[in-house]
């Protein structure tokens, strides 16, 4: 009961407050931007043609009605919460009449697939390679992996991505230039194969950088663990090295990495803007960029809402699980 009252409930309240504040700020900030969605839409819709002045005025009024931007800020804010609670995020202004839910629905699975997989692969690779390199610091392969990853780590992501793009689409043109798959979606091997084929290069670019980061972190932690008494006793007891590394050293380095994994997975909902732009890959990042440029309030709020809820929930889960994972931080 004490656990519920003094640990779980306050964190749940904190979670709700974070989401409320985050969503309210997301509602307000785009409206403080000098960019107006009606003007942007007018610009797009009339970019190629000349309208009569009367038609221009009619179009403007029509957009105000369709976008639901009539009324003062408070009215819009109350309407907004009403819609959020009903699960209706409204139409996208930049892709009208498509709804925000449809737009997010078409982008999110690509993002989850690409970022989810690459995050898990990079996390696992970084953890294992870092653990091995930390425990076997003098082996040739350990030094080779460390030198390679430490050299890659400082290179800005977009440069890595661009190099991969040029290497494997131009000089050695084996990967596609644009898109997420071939043909229309189906449960056939050819379609699934195309998903892997189209996603490989963007995923590789993400894995390279993220692995290097986690490798450095994991190696530092493993080096500390290596000099711990329990490792020394295990070695004296002649336990197999493999068992010492995987059962004890890496396991003990995982704790901060689990937090990092949870938050990284939650951040998936923000999308991978640079990856999507460089590789022409579908997903939420590109949607968000377009939404910001077009002042597409509804789309900005939809994606940010997802991100705020995702990260706040991941933090909450990590908080709640910590006492279970680590006996040292178990609550009283």
């Amino acid at each position, binding site marked *: 009961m004490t656990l519920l009252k003094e640990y779980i409930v306050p964190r749940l309240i904190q979670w709700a407050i974070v989401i409320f504040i985050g969503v309210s700020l997301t509602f307000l900030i785009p409206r403080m931007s000098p*960019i107006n969605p009606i003007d*942007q839409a007018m610009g797009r819709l009339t970019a190629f043609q000349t309208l009569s002045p009367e038609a221009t005025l009619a179009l403007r009024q029509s957009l105000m009605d369709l976008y639901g931007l009539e009324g003062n800020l408070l009215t819009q804010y109350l309407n907004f919460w009403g819609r959020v609670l009903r699960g209706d995020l409204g139409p996208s202004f930049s892709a009208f009449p498509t709804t925000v839910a449809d737009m997010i629905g078409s982008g999110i699975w690509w993002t989850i697939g690409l970022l989810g997989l690459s995050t898990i692969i990079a996390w696992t690779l970084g953890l294992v390679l870092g653990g091995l390199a930390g425990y076997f610091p003098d082996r040739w392969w350990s030094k080779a992996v460390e030198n390679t990853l430490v050299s890659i780590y400082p290179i800005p992501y977009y440069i890595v991505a661009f190099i991969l793009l040029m290497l494997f689409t131009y000089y050695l043109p084996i990967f596609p230039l644009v*898109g997420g798959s071939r043909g229309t979606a189906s449960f056939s091997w050819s379609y699934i194969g195309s998903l892997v084929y189209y996603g490989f290069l963007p995923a590789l670019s993400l894995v390279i950088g993220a692995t290097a980061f986690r490798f450095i972190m994991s190696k530092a932690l493993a080096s500390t663990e290596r000099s711990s008494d329990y490792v020394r006793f295990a070695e004296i007891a002649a336990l197999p090295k493999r068992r010492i590394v995987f059962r004890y050293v890496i396991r003990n380095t995982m704790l901060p990495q689990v937090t990092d994994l949870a938050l990284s997975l939650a951040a998936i909902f923000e999308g991978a803007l640079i990856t999507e732009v460089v590789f022409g890959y579908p997903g939420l990042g590109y949607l968000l960029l377009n939404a910001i440029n077009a002042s597409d309030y509804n789309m900005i709020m939809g994606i940010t809402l997802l991100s705020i809820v995702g990260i706040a929930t991941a933090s909450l889960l990590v908080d709640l699980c910590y006492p279970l994972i680590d006996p040292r931080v178990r609550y009283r």
Partner: protein
Amino acid sequence: MFSRLVLAGLLTAAIGLPVGGAMAQPSGLPVDVPREQLFVSDQILRYNVVGNYNFWVLGPQNPTRHAMFLETLWIRDQETGALVNDAASAPPQYNDDYTQMSVELRDNIFWSDGVQFTADDLVYTIETLKSTPELGANGWHAQLNQFVESVEKTGDHSVTFTLTEPNARFHSLFEARWNGIYMMPKHVFEEVEDLATFTNNPPVVLGTYIPVQADPNGFWELYERREDWERSPAGVETNNPGPENILSIFYGDSTRKAIAMSRGELDVYFDADFEAFQETLDTTPTARSWYQEFPWAYPNEVSSRQFVFNQENDPVFANKDVRWALALALDIVELQTEYIGGVVKVTPIPVPPTGELVSLYHEPLEEWLIDLEIDLGNGEMYKPYDPTVPDRIAEWAEGQGYDVPGTPREVFGSGWWKFDPEAAEALLVKNGFSRDGSGQWLKPDGEPWVLSLQSPPDENDAFRMANAASDMWTDFGIQVDLQGPERSVWDQNHIEGQFQVSTPWYSFALASGDAWPEIRGWHPDFYVPVGEDYRSLGGNNFQRINDPRVGELIDAMAAVEPGSEENHELVTDFLKHWTEEMYFITTISFKKFVTWDERYWTGFPTAENPERMPLYWFQGGKYTFQSLRPVAE
């Protein structure tokens, strides 16, 4: 040993997956259509409304799509200036007082489901657009209600419009430069309960191609040719089947388009920056643009680029002498060659020197331009026009080792203003400007002159033009603050007048030579002062020009027939007035590196075969697609 196994396994997984995938799918194209049956065109933007082919509501984007399957009554070709019949079979006919317009329709075209196109479709289209406010695309609902009293079928393939007031330009709603009112299939649409939410998917079309597959993320769309292609307007007009399939695909930036073409995965791109175009020529020997050699690019899209001034942000720009001084401080030859690469035409008036427009406006105005004088002060009159500009650009081109494919005027446009900093200085001194000890200009109030110039970097030529002006005006002694805001910010800065000098694009004449539809937004009736949205009365005058003479000329044009000699004289007078006032410093016309690869397909229009415009993403692009032939033939 174990660690080696782990590493080997990871490497195998990393390398094996894509190679396996690549072997299964050797092509980077997203569709399974034999390459020899597929024409691949550059999609100028990523469609963000997918699977919705209701182009009468606000939202679905029309570039390329309207060339594939949407029809209007007439197309105005920008290369030839000709009026091409689309769903109509003859030009519009007006009665004597322009209160009625009659249209004859083709009797040999059919919808893709086999139903014949008739006058009923046109009447239904007009009445439905008029009565349905939700069909708000392109302002057609509002304009038809404004202009059309009634529409009546006078035969199976003839229709008469009765107008609310005399209007000699009513047909322009159905005459596509970019697009014109799209015909609706009455037999399909009349069955629909709510046209506002109808997605029209799969569509019944009057054009040659039907969309059959689309990427849900908007990167590409695949079209299939109708079996009865010869019963579509473009089929009738060209009598050529065209490709069996067309894939429009969005690759993004210029670099990726150049790579795609080198891989044989793109047959035409609509434009690229100069460097990417040169890369295409190097990597794709079968690629070319309008000209086979220098200056390569297509020069005849009817638009021009200019520096424009906010007349109310800083009072100095309301003074025409200041605007003239800024023009004379620009070296157009250096701008056109060193900054743009010599690949565009020059023009001093806001009408590009293309096809018919040269003979309509540029040649007749030449003598007037040569004789034009401006007052430098102290009674000294000065002739600012330099007719030798195209010759000097041609000299530069020959110096670079290029052959000029025609006369300098054909290739590089008309003359321009002299580069004469001394005359520019005289104009400024006349108006109370002075220089400080370091040679920098001070405004009449003694404050340093800091000129703010805004140009969005995503528009390559405009931004390069702005850089040229920034350098030249800086050399002249003006402190230039060149800003390159995002397009959305740039757009927004114009709304309430938060700019001094900017780089938009305009053409004050259509390919037909008429100007009124393009300039009526500058009528003083629509003038709105700085601080308020310039469009709040419906005009498009973000420069805040408030000139009664402009209003008089626009009113006079409205009252005459667009093709009449009287209208031509009024447009000419308007251009003279605009030039004397130097409201815009117009510099160059549009150019596009519309580039196609002749590896698989041939038949695109070229400088040697200029029978139509190559602007395939316009509604009139349908004839370009339809004219293609496989190289294997």
